[in-house]
């Protein structure tokens, strides 16, 4: 089995920054495992600007921000496998070595032995099921991030008349993006009395395009049998109960959900690491080490961050702590 000093799970902003930092702090033998076909993670579909003000002192798009890190990874000759999904991480009690099982097209299922593992799997969107919205189950219901991928990476328009549930940043960004593509965004409904995303996105993505933001409002029912034909919006009171008589039908062919992000911790939990119920991420020490010795976590897998710049900074720390951990052994 190949022995690696630091295996980094995920080649998005967190994984790349952690890898670079681990290298700068003296680790030679590093490997990034990335499930997509290229490095960059979710940044690759975030073609809007707003990235990098803290890190680079200038405003970049997502792919530009990612490219700066990819260049550094290549310059440092840090190896990475793309199209590679990690299936399992096991920690050996005595030796503290980790066995990482992964799969790709070239090697099939294979295993690596790692001194440290840095978890950088990012997060995923909360799906419709988690909301339990009653109604039919037609086509045309997407999470905002899936729609973003379809539009920005694949060049497809998911629909033309849109209602967005939830005012997370991806939802707000997609309200603008769909509008620019000629779709009509009829409403953004937010259950809470305040928007979920950044104020600058509320202004730049909704107000600038006259897209109504309906606060204290949620989707009570989904209509349409084959393709979605509309939603019933309803006002909710302070305790999240629908207020009778406030129902409003809005026709649409697409419902986008932007109702929160969940750190993606299947691997972490399966490894037996202690989890933090509140953040959805693993419990970590001040050195970003999980309860499994030598396994570190950073970025959105640890907790959902507002800015990628913060992810990069946290990941640099994780890389440094991981390097120190290896050197101490």
């Amino acid at each position, binding site marked *: 089995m190949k022995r690696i000093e630091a295996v980094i799970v995920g080649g998005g902003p967190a994984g790349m920054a952690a890898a670079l930092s681990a290298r700068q702090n003296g680790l030679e033998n590093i490997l990034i495992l990335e499930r997509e076909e290229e490095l960059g993670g979710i940044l690759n579909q975030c073609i809007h600007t707003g990235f990098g003000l803290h890190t680079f002192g200038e405003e970049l798009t997502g792919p530009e921000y990612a490219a700066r890190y990819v260049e550094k990874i290549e310059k440092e000759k840090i190896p990475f496998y793309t199209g590679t999904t990690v299936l399992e991480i096991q920690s050996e009690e005595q030796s503290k070595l980790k066995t990482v099982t992964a*799969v790709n097209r070239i090697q099939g299922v294979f295993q690596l032995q790692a001194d440290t593992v840095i978890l950088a799997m990012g997060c995923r969107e909360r799906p*419709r099921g988690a909301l339990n919205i009653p109604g039919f189950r037609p086509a*045309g219901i997407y999470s905002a991030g899936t729609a973003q991928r379809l539009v920005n990476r694949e060049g497809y328009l998911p629909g033309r008349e849109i209602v967005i549930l939830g005012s997370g940043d991806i939802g707000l960004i997609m309200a603008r993006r769909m509008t620019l593509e000629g779709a009509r965004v009829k409403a953004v409904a937010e259950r809470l009395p305040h928007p979920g995303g950044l104020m600058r996105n509320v202004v730049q993505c909704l107000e600038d395009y006259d897209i109504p933001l309906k606060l204290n409002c949620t989707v009570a029912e989904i209509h349409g049998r084959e393709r979605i034909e509309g939603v019933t919006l309803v006002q909710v009171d302070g305790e999240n109960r629908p207020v009778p008589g406030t129902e409003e039908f809005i026709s649409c062919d697409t419902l986008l959900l932007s109702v929160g992000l969940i750190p993606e911790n299947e691997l972490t939990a399966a490894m037996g690491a202690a989890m933090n119920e509140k953040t959805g991420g693993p419990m970590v020490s001040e050195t970003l080490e999980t309860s499994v010795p030598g396994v570190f976590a950073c970025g959105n897998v640890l907790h959902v961050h507002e800015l990628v710049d913060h992810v990069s900074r946290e990941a640099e720390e994780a890389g440094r702590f991981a390097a120190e951990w290896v050197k101490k052994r």
Partner: protein
Amino acid sequence: MYDVLIIGAGVIGCAAARELSRYEAGICVVERCSDVCEGTSKANSGIVHAGYDAPTGSMKARMNVTGNEKMEELCRELDVSFQRIGSLVICMEEERIPELQKLYDRGIANGVKGLRLLNREETLELEPGLSEKVRGALYAPSAGILCPFELTVALAENAAANGAEFRLNTEVTDIVREHGGYIVRTNQGDLRTRMVVNAAGVYADVFHNMVSSDKIHITPRKGEYCLLDTEAGGLVRHTVFPLPEKKGKGILVTPTVHGNILLGPTAAPVEDREGVNTTKEGLEAVLHSAEQYVKELPVRKVITSFAGLRASEDGREFVLGEVKDAPGFFDAAGIESPGLSSVPAIGEFLAEMIQKRGGWRAKEKFESRRKGIRRFLELTPEEQQELLRENPAYGTIVCRCEKITEGEILEAIRRPLGATTLDGIKRRTRAGMGRCQGGFCSPRVMELLASELHRAQETITKCGGNSRMLAGHIRGTDSEKD
């Protein structure tokens, strides 16, 4: 001219087709949807009941008990996973304990084997996830679980492999008797057949009533369900029912063969035969009822909810057999619970009866076995390497929640009667069935469907008809004109 035309490619229609395909007969299954298993068969509890529920002597009791006995062998032949996990009917109130005894007695009379009455301690020992308030239970070790999509697809594939023809997207509009058989009029033209099997689920009364003056009537009864994440797996180990109430068997809690926990169903008669929408009241009732007897129900682990319609005939009995005033027209109507449990028995029952009429010889080469899609990650390292050499696509995970590879998805499309829709992929491989419910994998699955079927991606649907996934291309892309 077909020998037998079966209306409906649900689990019953496919079982009848599979059993009839043993004979030298021309079999055709017509289905209005774009895939098999699109009606009642796709949204039910996936339970193989032991057989103590139905009145002794009824067709339901007979088919259930026989079906349960035969299910294991059928699933082995068709490579379908079936787990005999056992069921518990639990009693929460001391004064209702005698009702358990009644169920037990009925079960014995129906021929159910292995039934046992348990006291409180025995119940909790067997099922520690139950509320401490439980008073006793009826334990039926012969009850089991299976995946209804898997069974239906397997029956259909096996029937097709043995020569049965499937006509999808074909909706029957009228049935006319003619000398020596029937003309079945469809949206795709007229089909002639000697005999008809009516396995049309909630529409079976419509077709029956086209040929018979002895009318039947089906009232769809909606059942709503919530599905919990595999993270909640282990909540219960058996299928757990509360004691039945007048209106139905009550809300059950059961593991699924894929390690999820399923809660449901409600029971509400509806007018709309397409009314598979969930309701706020229904979903609340599901969660509320389950909470009464499961110790700690993780309601936050719900990953999806759905509703199905039971094809309930007003006589509340299976309507099976040749229609008196319509020779050669065979009903499989009113197949509500325990319909899935009865599948092997109903299939054989119908096929035997029909074969007697047709007098066909048995095929010399009936292939009773069918292999399912191989789950790459469940294979041995040697098998994995071999499959990978065959097609490297087995090394790419497409559905990260259920760990489904590109190779499995391609296989689901390329098989006979292969998937043509996202739901088709989901039901054959489980891609899109996990906790993200297709959020990550659906764009890639659409792409694979489009390239394999040589279709433009924007024509790919969720489940046929007008359920298109995409509205078109974005502005200014080169492909906008293709």
